[in-house]
């Protein structure tokens, strides 16, 4: 019989055991009677020889190894009865736990989906990205297309593919809309090991200049435009005025930095950047071949770097290629934030556990007599502890089940609330990982808050306990205070963290962004495809866009720019103050905006010196730029920058003249700009962009308008007004400047809100803890207070006693918590932009909040103590 069979046959085994022992005793009795003993005496001696039938039975049951199952069922039943008998206690405990476990489960679901789950590609752990490391700017760039082609050709340990951002106006008949797109190299699908859901991926001969115009559409677009009809394959679409043939449909799981609707062959891109070995724009993904290791891949990349460095010293000096896991790359910088939040909610759960432990402990003390009774009837200490833990485990599981239910409801809304794009948001799911986690947390918390009361299970001095009845508090008082102190310490950590973020927000929202963000609307613009035929047409179309925008009611001024402050996107240009620049890796890089003259008045840039760009700057006049004060300070310290010359390789071999200096704009966001690497800024006129680049620039321009009315109100009229005679120019990604500025703080605000809520809950729980414990301890001390009062203590003396006890806990807890808060502060500073050192005033402020709350929680029990009637109390004692 194996264990399982024994468990199932335990009834039968039980009766067999009885029968066997009965036979033994009968047989022994018979033998003794034969030996001449009186039958009654013989039976007595036989029983005696066996040594207590009940004990033997017990030990035989133990030998079966199935004993604990019965015990467990018994304990669980008893625990359930206990909970039902005290519904108020049960509900309080379960709801507290459910909230705590629910919150942790939500956070863990996000952490699991974003950070822990492998990417949804086969053998995704072998996927990496390749980037360019430059000595000056570190490992933050993509790879230039010529370098990518060389890597692809030379690498033995990696298969590689590249992609870049694309997109344009998609037209079918009269219908046209702007779609996001990606330019991809032909091997991209095979590197990811995904297959098109319909049709095929690109062929190698389509991935080069002059290849057949083919396009792959997204699963989403296939659904939307073709209703998943296979006839979509080989049918024509028009993208930015060029006819394409659809050859395939990409699977929904393929994500290249967010969603894209169309994929075109990267090799057909005809812009100059494709031939520029220094334009590190391409995103390279690679799969480490099955027979290679990542160390080999890294070594090979280093070899290729050196080879290319000596082959192209002009472009590649100081540049090397690095690889990094794709998972880490796609997750980016949310990692720190997610762990931070998980840690914060875990602290709240801990506090909740401590509160429940307090409740349980108070009950354990009043149940001491019951336990003593059990112990005297033969229950061992281990057995009693097991029973206590079963009770708390049951509470934990009930709370956990409710918590998982809460998490299932709230995880989606929570993900939607996340500021900006949460990477892999669509993969967040309540899966087995999460359930295992929730189960673990439930059991662990059950154990955590159950262990202290369980340890109080009586072992000795039974008789005393029984005699004393339920009155003795004994060492429980110290345990209770310990609980409250740890609660306060945990709350202090959260309070200080929340306070630091609050201060950060306060400071950042008063920071001057460098422009006037009120009443400005920004939007990307896609010119009508019919206007994209020639540079002259494009220039005319942009003038037309500005004219129509200016004539829209409510618009005061309109300007164009390729980049918009605090919006994603950048254009970095290397500059130098003499015609002979240093090696490529030492050239300073400035954030360059290509703008029209009105930009100054739309954004209300402060003009520090000289003039801004104006209508006299044309293709046939001297090339000019305007720089910001940071660049002026870097390039021309203690000189007048106006009139100086800069050499900007990307704008041509000739120098450009600085005609004006404007104030610095916090392009990287209110919080992040101070720490940004590229802070120099250059403005150059769209009117001086050479004809050959007009096509490229026309695909990236945005419009900014200053309005007299709330800017959101003009977005619809503006959209209508841009459907002009020469075709419909499309506005997309329309945002107000205030939104963008606010969005640049969204992460800080989000963290602050969540930490604030956590801290608030923690404070509330800690106060409930203080209140509960003091009420309990005070009620235990009533006889003592009675004696004191009888001996002459006044009501305020007694009150002082209680308050002193509370104050002791508050101060100790705060001191302990401060150590944790220091650690938390360092963590925050490292992981959130704009957070500064822990300031004394924050700490003082938060401690004051805690003290006042603690004081209020103390008042009620203290008053109750003061109202103790001496005679009454003494009689009770």
């Amino acid at each position, binding site marked *: 019989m194996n264990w399982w069979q024994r468990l199932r046959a335990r009834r039968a085994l039980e009766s*067999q055991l009885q*029968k066997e022992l009965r036979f033994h005793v009968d047989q*022994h009795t018979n033998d003794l009677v034969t030996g001449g003993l009186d039958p009654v005496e013989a039976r007595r001696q036989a029983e005696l020889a066996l040594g207590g039938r009940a004990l033997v039975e017990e030990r*035989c049951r133990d*030998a079966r190894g199935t004993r604990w199952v019965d015990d467990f069922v018994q304990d669980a039943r008893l625990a359930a009865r206990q909970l039902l008998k005290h519904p108020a206690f049960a509900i309080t405990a379960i709801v507290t736990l459910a909230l705590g476990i629910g919150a942790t489960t939500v956070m863990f679901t996000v952490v699991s989906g974003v950070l822990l789950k492998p990417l949804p590609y086969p053998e995704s752990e072998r996927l990496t990205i390749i980037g360019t490391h430059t000595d000056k700017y570190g490992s933050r760039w993509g790879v230039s297309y010529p370098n990518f082609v060389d890597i692809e050709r030379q690498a033995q340990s990696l298969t590689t593919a590249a992609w870049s951002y694309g997109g344009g106006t998609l037209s079918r008949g009269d219908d046209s809309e702007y779609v996001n797109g990606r330019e991809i190299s032909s091997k991209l699908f095979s590197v990811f090991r995904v297959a098109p859901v319909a049709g095929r991926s690109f062929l190698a001969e389509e991935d080069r200049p002059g290849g057949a115009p083919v396009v792959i559409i997204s699963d989403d677009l296939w659904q939307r435009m073709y209703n998943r009809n296979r006839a979509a394959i080989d049918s024509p679409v028009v993208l930015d005025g060029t006819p394409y043939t659809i050859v395939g449909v990409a699977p929904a799981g393929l994500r290249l930095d967010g969603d894209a609707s169309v994929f075109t062959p990267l090799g057909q891109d005809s812009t100059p950047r494709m031939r520029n070995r220094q334009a590190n724009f391409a995103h390279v993904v690679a799969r480490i071949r099955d027979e290679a290791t990542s160390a080999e891949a890294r070594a090979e990349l280093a070899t290729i770097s050196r080879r290319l460095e000596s082959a192209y010293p002009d472009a590649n000096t100081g540049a090397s290629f690095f690889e990094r896991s794709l998972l880490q790359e796609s997750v980016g910088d949310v990692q720190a934030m997610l762990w931070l939040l998980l840690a914060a909610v875990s602290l709240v759960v801990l506090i909740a556990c401590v509160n429940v432990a307090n409740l349980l402990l108070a009950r354990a003390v009043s149940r001491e007599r019951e336990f003593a009774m059990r112990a005297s009837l033969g229950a061992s200490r281990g057995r009693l502890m097991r029973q206590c833990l079963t009770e708390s485990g049951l509470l934990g599981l009930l709370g956990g089940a409710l918590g998982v239910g809460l998490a299932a409801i709230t995880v989606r809304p929570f993900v939607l609330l996340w500021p900006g794009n949460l990477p892999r948001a669509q993969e967040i799911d309540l899966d087995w990982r999460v359930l295992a986690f929730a189960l673990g947390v439930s059991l662990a918390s059950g154990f955590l808050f159950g262990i202290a009361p369980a340890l109080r299970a009586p072992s000795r001095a039974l008789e005393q306990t029984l005699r004393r009845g339920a009155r003795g508090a004994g060492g429980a008082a110290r345990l209770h205070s310990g609980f409250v102190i740890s609660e306060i310490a945990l709350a202090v950590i959260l309070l200080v963290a929340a306070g630091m973020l609050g201060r950060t927000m306060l400071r950042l929202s008063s920071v001057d962004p460098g422009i006037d963000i009120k009443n400005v609307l920004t939007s990307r613009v896609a010119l009508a495809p019919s206007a994209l035929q020639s540079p002259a047409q494009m220039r005319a179309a942009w003038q037309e866009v500005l004219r129509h925008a200016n004539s829209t009611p409510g618009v005061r001024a309109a300007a164009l720019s390729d980049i918009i402050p605090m919006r994603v996107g950048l254009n970095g240009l290397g500059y130098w103050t003499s015609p002979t620049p240093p090696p490529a890796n030492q050239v300073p890089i400035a954030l360059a905006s290509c703008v029209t003259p009105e930009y100054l008045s739309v954004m209300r840039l402060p003009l520090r010196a000289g003039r801004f760009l104006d209508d006299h700057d044309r293709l046939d006049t001297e090339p000019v730029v305007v720089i910001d004060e940071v660049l002026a300070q870097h390039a021309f310290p203690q000189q007048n920058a106006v009139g100086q010359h800069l050499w900007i390789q990307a704008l041509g071999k000739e120098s450009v003249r600085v005609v004006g200096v404007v104030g610095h704009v916090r392009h990287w966001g209110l919080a992040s700009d101070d720490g940004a690497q590229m802070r120099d800024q250059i403005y150059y006129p769209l009117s001086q962009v050479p004809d050959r680049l007009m096509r490229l620039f026309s695909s990236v321009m945005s419009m900014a308008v200053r309005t007299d009315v709330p800017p959101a109100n003009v977005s619809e009229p503006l959209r209508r007004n841009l459907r002009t005679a020469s075709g419909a120019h499309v506005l997309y990604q329309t945002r107000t400047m205030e939104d963008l500025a606010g969005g640049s703080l969204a992460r800080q605000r989000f963290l602050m809100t969540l930490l604030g809520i956590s801290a608030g809950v923690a404070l509330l729980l800690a106060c409930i803890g203080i209140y509960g414990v003091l009420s309990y301890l005070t009620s235990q001390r009533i006889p003592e207070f009675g004696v004191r009062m009888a001996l002459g203590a006044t009501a305020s003396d007694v009150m002082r006693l209680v308050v002193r006890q509370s104050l002791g806990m508050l101060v100790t807890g705060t001191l302990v918590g401060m150590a944790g808060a220091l650690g938390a502060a360092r963590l925050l500073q490292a992981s959130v932009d704009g957070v500064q050192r822990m300031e004394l005033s924050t700490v003082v402020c938060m401690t004051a909040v805690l003290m006042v709350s603690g004081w209020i929680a103390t008042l009620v029990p203290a008053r109750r103590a003061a109202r103790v009637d001496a005679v009454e109390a003494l009689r009770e004692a």
Partner: protein
Amino acid sequence: MAEKTDLPQGTLDLLILKIFALGPVHGYAIATRLQQVSRDVVQVPQGSLYPALHRLENRGLLAAEWDQTDTGREAKFYRLTRKGRSVLDSEVDSWLRLTQAIELILRLSPGDAS
């Protein structure tokens, strides 16, 4: 009455197995047999006998079935399984080796120590 010694730890199982090597018996018979063969020198508390029997049964060293005794009563008879026999053999071996070694040490005279 001769002075009685407690059984050393773990030897009860060995003794039980050894007695079963002679043939299937019920619990009471074992108890009396144990007493006889140990010539009343070793104290075998009857209370420990049954837990030990059940433990050995659960480990698969003994098999049990209900059968009639000579007097016609139903009793639980245990017998040694094949696994039990091989365990017994190896246990006996190691026991003998151990006792010989201990005996050797105990009989050591002071001069032999070097």
